[in-house]
């Protein structure tokens, strides 16, 4: 994965959860999504995770390669199956359900 990564927490490269957030420049929606995602992961993630923020303005071809249409889009590429969440991730509950990164007990 060529784009520069803002790899988040200390937990090593062998992360169980691999997240990619696609944004287009420093728009309010993008910035909100980035901070919301960090917050959710800090508070709720139960496994090691890795976040990569991809700016499509800098790498426009990646939008095609990864089938991104909406901005911002959060893609969980690991664990499979791939899941996509679009929007500024302001609804924490829905993000958690969508990513399924919290334990099975929570919903």
């Amino acid at each position, binding site marked *: 994965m060529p784009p520069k990564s803002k790899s988040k927490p200390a937990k090593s490269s062998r992360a169980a959860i691999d997240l990619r957030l696609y944004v287009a420049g420093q728009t309010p929606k993008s910035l909100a999504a980035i901070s919301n995602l960090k917050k959710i992961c800090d508070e709720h993630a139960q496994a090691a995770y890795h976040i990569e923020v991809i700016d499509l303005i800098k790498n426009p071809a990646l939008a095609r390669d990864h089938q991104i249409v909406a901005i911002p889009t959060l893609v969980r590429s690991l664990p499979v199956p791939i899941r996509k969440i*679009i929007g*500024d991730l*302001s609804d924490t509950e*829905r993000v958690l359900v969508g990513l399924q990164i919290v334990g099975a007990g929570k919903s």
Partner: protein
Amino acid sequence: MAKKINRRSHPLTPLPKAPTGIPGLDEITGGGLPQGRTTIVCGGPGCGKTMLGIEFLVRGALEFNEPGVLMAFEETPEDIARNVASLGFDIEDLAAKKKLFLDYISVEPSEIEETGEYDLEALFIRLENAVETIGAKRVMFDTVEALFTGFANPAILRAEFRRLFRWLKDRGLTTVLTAERGEGTLTRQGLEEYVSDCVILLDHRIKDQISARRMRIVKYRGTKHGADEYPFLIDERGMSVLPITALQLQHGVSEERVSSGVPDLDEMLEGQGYFRGSTVLLSGTAGSGKTTLAASFADATCRRGERCLYIDFEESPKQVARNMKSVGIDLEAWSKKGLLVHEAWRPTQFGIEMHLLRIHKLIEEVKPQAVILDPITNLISSSSEKEVYSMLLRLMDTLKSSGITTVFVSLTSGGATLEGTKVGISSLTDTWILLRDIELNGERNRCLYVLKSRGMAHSNQLREFVMTDDGVQLVPAYTGAGGVLTGSSRVAQEAKEKADLLLRQQDAQNKQQQFNRKRLALQAQLEALQAELSDLDREATETGLEERQRMAELILDRERMAESRGSK
């Protein structure tokens, strides 16, 4: 943004157009789609929307040097490439040459969760990247409405659509947008509300089990356009639209004459045949020799070194060629030389517009000097009489304006009016040759007459149509005291007349001889009488002389006596 923003410097210049290159479509739109604007192509499933859009892109790249971007929402580039490969378009090759850019946008609603605010900026980024990669002038979206199934928030989508159309317009990209037709609206999502420069509606209907495609320009802002429904078809060479209302009566005329292929028939048409560029109708009952006459014309055309297009709706070319050999016409030889193009297809094979378009395409390809349609009456089986009539009218118009001599063969079915055609085009044709059978004395003979031929003093004679080993011959039919006779009765009547004539001639000869004899006899009599008369005359003269001599002698004697008496 690297693209220049197109701004019209002159608000009064006519709307610039981007030609589609699709035959017929540029005619009805007055030059093409609005340049730098968005056109919506809508219609039901399978109506040819995608086809129109792709052809617009492909022809733009190939013919007008305008590279294009295809944003596909429904089919993958592989599928699209395969679909249009059958039409002779090599999309992959165009993509490799950077004349076309394909982007497949997959929107899977099941994998997407929405939380909060978003926009479709990534779509814009992809589009912009594609446009810049190849320097595109044209864009096509197929079918953009797929986004509505992928995203749940219609308010965001509508705002983004508005932004998209403005974005496209600002960059001067000529865009085609395909959309499904909705219930009571042109498009299911009401896209026409955002884009209202040009809307084209496609329709695919089935009538009497035959498919018919129609196109209508619902709207074209700032330009005059055809408002009717135009038939169109999609075949192995792509799409073609047929402008119907292009009917005009302004074609040039030719004084030149062309042989009908039958010297005797030329003789009936002032000895010169048809006018070049005229339409000829050959009508007649079954087996009256229509095809033979048409084939003779084809033969004559090829003999002059001209090209002839023979369209058959009844027999296969091979069958016609074989049959015509029996009358000394070798059509196959002309086909081999490339002068004769003999095409045959069933009238029921497709709808009437298809026929017309196919004929048009053949004419464009072959560029013939003569066209033969055999028989036009069969076309009715694929359509209604009215439609056939209007099709033939349009065809006639094209043919006449291109100076092509045309022969229409029309079958008059049993019981129908002889002097009429089922499709009612007789009044439109310039020359009408009627073939009919005359049944007499247990045989059936073919007859031909020129019912009309505009602009020439044609024969008014009914001729017998005889097929010989070397072509058609027209024998003057017997017309006399015994009525019009043909075939063996004509031969018999002619023989009888000959005998009668001989008899009369002999009779007259005999009489003449008798007269001569009598005259000679009288002459002889006359001569004898004349001889008698002259004898009589001579006798009379002689008698008179004797008498005078005697009298003189008597006087002399008396004198002598007196002398002798007196002197003594």
